[in-house]
């Protein structure tokens, strides 16, 4: 409660400061406001084109020019620099996004509006996405299941790729960097009359790097990957457009487990997206879409002393998704959209009890109204039916009120859910060397009797009968309350308070003891967690040459049960592992693992028009966080060991030589920061140079 009080104090403080500012400068007109800040169009938040500055949700847009000036290669590079977003690596090396303090599995990642699959252990690896032909990246924060269904608890990130533009053009890129990293890309664009095509090819290879003292293992093993994507557009008639896109991605990486165990790890992914858009009249517009994607991964280890295969694993996921969407424009102040579709998903995976098939038909509606010039209200809801878990209704309501030309307030309240994934339902895995077993929720009732027959179970802790009901989807209620304030045409502030309350969080617990002294684990709904905090950003663009932006996020991420345990004096710690225990206070509870209380960024861009140089320096900060419970009480507390706070500074200089040639040099992680013990995805200083040819 104290926290909440503080938030409201801060909120009202800023509110009144805003009002007092605005009273002094009431004569500033809107015309001047729009001059220095580009107003981007964003489709992701409402599935209709809307100006980002007029939306009732907290949104961020990463533009193509920002991607180019920072020379970012992959999606993780650029997202990590955005306010309130950090990338977090999982044990498998995948790098996912943490948004509003929620894990990677709770943020939906889309390409041109279609969901990407291939979350091996929940994390969607952002390194899979090349930034070569991206028009913009939309980030919508807050629960968004009312439009997108499962996984949009924290928010949605939508990667918008370039569409064919009139004429013939293309470009070639080559970037060479530390760790033998080479990135080669080419794109071609053609459009004449009704027909347009754009094609993009990219190859990224890296020698990997090693932060450990091991001579056999690397932190990141060498890899090579290829991306090929193409988009075709065809205007069937004035009112009918056809669009088809396809993408193929493949990666090969060394997989080394020890001196004698070596193998490969491969990923292949494709997706195709067909869309037909028809405008019936100036009120009714219909989209027909068919999306199909497949993600395949396999890995093996061979024993190189005898050539015998030691282990093998595979993962083969398929998603088919037809959707029909109508947009009905009653008037410029009232737009109604509705849609229905089906998600058909299959997975074939090693260590699974069966090859599951999920079918999930869904329907959604949304009404976007402007009762007057200063007020915008959006109400929407989506219903997801499902063959394997409880159906979900996800409503959302949002408002934006423009108090004057400088100040707006906005708020949204939405429901988000994440369906239990295949692994949480069907996993049946026994570790060969240590001997523990992990069972999916639905696999328990068949696997436990088999283990009992084999005499492997010493005693049952959770009876099998408890697994008869369905596992519930994880769900959240997200609240965002914010304010945008234009101090003048050059200076803009944005402020947002957020709170996500999550129920039925799926976790693992011991359900039986095995006779070998190990345990059987399964998944269950238990925890209630909440993440709350505030986000602040400032953009200052005093001239066309110079731009400064800064952002900050304050985050509290707690497990409710843990808070209660600390309050009730049920949590204990030791000064060192061999000293007597003492009781901890509530103030000793730090919160969830891998969450930093403070994250911040500062970016400076300078463009010299005369010399055709643009340069930038970007700084990101992350305060201390904990990765594991070191003192055995199950919680992260002030007597645990923390990962120290750190700062990463990146800088780039780009020069346009002439109409066709650009060169760039840059340094990422200028301070050469590494934490070899705790952070595997920061490799130290990276120096690069880049050549770009446009024609």
């Amino acid at each position, binding site marked *: 409660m104290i926290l909440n009080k503080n938030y409201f104090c801060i909120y009202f403080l800023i509110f009144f400061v805003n009002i007092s500012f605005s009273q002094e400068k009431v004569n500033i007109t809107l015309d001047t406001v729009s001059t220095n800040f580009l107003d981007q169009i964003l489709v992701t938040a409402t599935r209709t084109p809307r100006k980002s500055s007029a939306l009732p949700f907290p949104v961020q847009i990463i533009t193509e020019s920002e991607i180019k000036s920072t020379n970012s290669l992959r999606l993780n590079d650029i997202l990590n620099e955005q306010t309130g977003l950090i990338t977090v690596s999982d044990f498998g090396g995948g790098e996912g996004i943490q948004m509003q303090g929620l894990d990677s599995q709770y943020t939906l990642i889309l390409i041109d509006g279609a969901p990407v699959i291939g979350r091996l252990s929940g994390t969607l690896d952002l390194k899979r996405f090349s930034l070569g032909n991206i028009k913009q990246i939309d980030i919508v924060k807050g629960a968004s299941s009312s439009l997108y269904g499962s996984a949009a608890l924290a928010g949605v990130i939508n990667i918008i790729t370039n569409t064919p533009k009139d004429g013939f053009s293309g470009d070639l890129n080559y970037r060479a960097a530390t760790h033998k990293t080479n990135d080669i890309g080419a794109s071609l664009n053609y459009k004449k009359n009704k027909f347009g095509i754009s094609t993009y090819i990219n190859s990224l290879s890296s020698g990997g790097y090693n932060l450990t003292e091991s001579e056999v293992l690397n932190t990141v093993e060498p890899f090579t990957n290829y991306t090929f994507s193409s988009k075709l557009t065809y205007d069937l008639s004035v009112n009918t457009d056809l669009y088809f896109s396809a993408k193929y991605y493949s990666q090969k990486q060394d997989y080394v487990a020890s001196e004698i165990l070596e193998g490969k790890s491969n990923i292949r992914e494709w997706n195709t997206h067909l869309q037909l858009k028809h405008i019936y009249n100036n009120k009714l517009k219909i989209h027909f879409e068919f999306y199909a994607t497949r993600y395949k991964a396999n890995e093996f280890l061979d024993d190189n002393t005898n050539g015998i295969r030691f282990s093998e694993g595979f993962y083969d996921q398929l998603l088919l998704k037809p959707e029909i969407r109508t947009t009905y424009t009653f008037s410029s102040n009232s737009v109604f959209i509705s849609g229905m579709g089906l998600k058909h998903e299959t997975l074939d995976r090693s260590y699974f009890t069966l090859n599951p098939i999920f079918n999930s038909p869904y329907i959604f509606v949304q009404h976007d109204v402007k009762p007057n010039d200063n007020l915008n209200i959006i109400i929407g809801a989506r219903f997801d039916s499902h063959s394997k878990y409880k159906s979900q209704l996800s409503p959302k309501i949002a408002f934006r009120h423009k108090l004057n030309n400088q100040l707006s307030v906005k708020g949204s309240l939405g429901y988000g859910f994440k369906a239990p994934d295949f692994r949480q339902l069907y996993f049946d895995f026994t570790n060969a*060397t*240590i*001997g523990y077993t992990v069972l999916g929720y639905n696999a328990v009732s068949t696997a436990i009797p088999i283990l009992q027959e084999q005499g492997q179970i*010493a*005693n049952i*802790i959770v009876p099998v009968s408890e697994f008869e009901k369905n596992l519930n989807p994880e769900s959240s209620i997200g609240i965002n309350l914010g304010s945008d304030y234009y101090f003048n045409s050059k200076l803009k502030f944005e402020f947002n308070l957020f709170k996500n309350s999550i129920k039925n969080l799926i976790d693992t617990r*011991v359900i039986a*003891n095995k*006779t*070998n*002294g*190990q*345990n059987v684990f399964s998944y269950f709904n238990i925890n209630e967690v909440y993440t709350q905090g505030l986000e602040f950003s400032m953009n200052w663009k005093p001239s066309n040459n110079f731009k400064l932006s800064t952002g900050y996020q304050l985050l509290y991420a707690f497990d409710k049960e843990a808070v209660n345990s600390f309050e009730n004096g*049920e*949590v*204990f*710690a*030791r000064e*060192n*592992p*061999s*000293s*007597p*225990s*003492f*009781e901890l206070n509530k103030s000793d509870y730090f919160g969830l693992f891998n969450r930093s209380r403070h994250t911040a960024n500062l970016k400076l861009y300078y463009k010299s028009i005369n010399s055709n140089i643009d340069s930038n320096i970007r700084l990101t900060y992350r305060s201390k966080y904990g990765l594991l419970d070191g*003192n*055995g*009480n*199950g919680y992260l507390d002030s007597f645990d060991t923390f990962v120290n706070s750190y700062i990463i500074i990146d800088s780039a200089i780009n020069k346009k030589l002439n109409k066709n040639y650009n060169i760039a040099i840059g340094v990422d992680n200028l301070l050469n920061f590494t934490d070899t013990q705790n952070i595997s995805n920061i490799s130290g200083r990276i120096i690069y140079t880049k050549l770009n040819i446009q024609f």
Partner: protein
Amino acid sequence: MKTIKLFILLILLTGFYSCEKTTDPPLNDILSITVSNLYAPQSGGQGQPITGEFTKFEFATGQITTSETDWDIAFRGTSIIVNGGTSLGTIDEPNRTGQAAAYIENGTFVSVNEVDPTLLITDSDSGYAIATGSDNGWYNYSGGPSYLITPIPGKVLVFRTNDNFYAKMEILSYYENAPSDPDSSVHASRFYTFNYIYQPNGILTF
């Protein structure tokens, strides 16, 4: 076991009691003892059946014992058994002959000062009174890369002895000489260090 240190606390209350109620027999002294490096070896494990003699211990003497009957608790690896109930049936497990029972209470060693007899359970053919496995009983196993066995803070083991007296125990370390910074690749494991208080008067408070 020459490293056992014996501290005897004199109970001043005895004097007061004897003034008021002269008919009561004088109470015996409560024992507060730290046991260091009680070695509890085992064979097998890692998927193989666990074997090996349990190391038996008696609270009243503060010593290990080889007696078949006069023991209270016994240790093998991370397993702790009591001399009460029935055997789980593992290889080399001793027969239960006494009245011993146990439960685990959350608290500090000082704050747990009374036995709740309703919570006491004996070993049985389906499991031990002190549950085995990481986070089920007295310890946490960290897994890789450190592979450490650490006593969970705030777990006080409460025992009824073989002959119906009571004791409370806090395990401090599973590694030889109770290092303050244990390292499973350096320090030998299966060496218990623990504090216990033994109440020799048959009453439920410590």
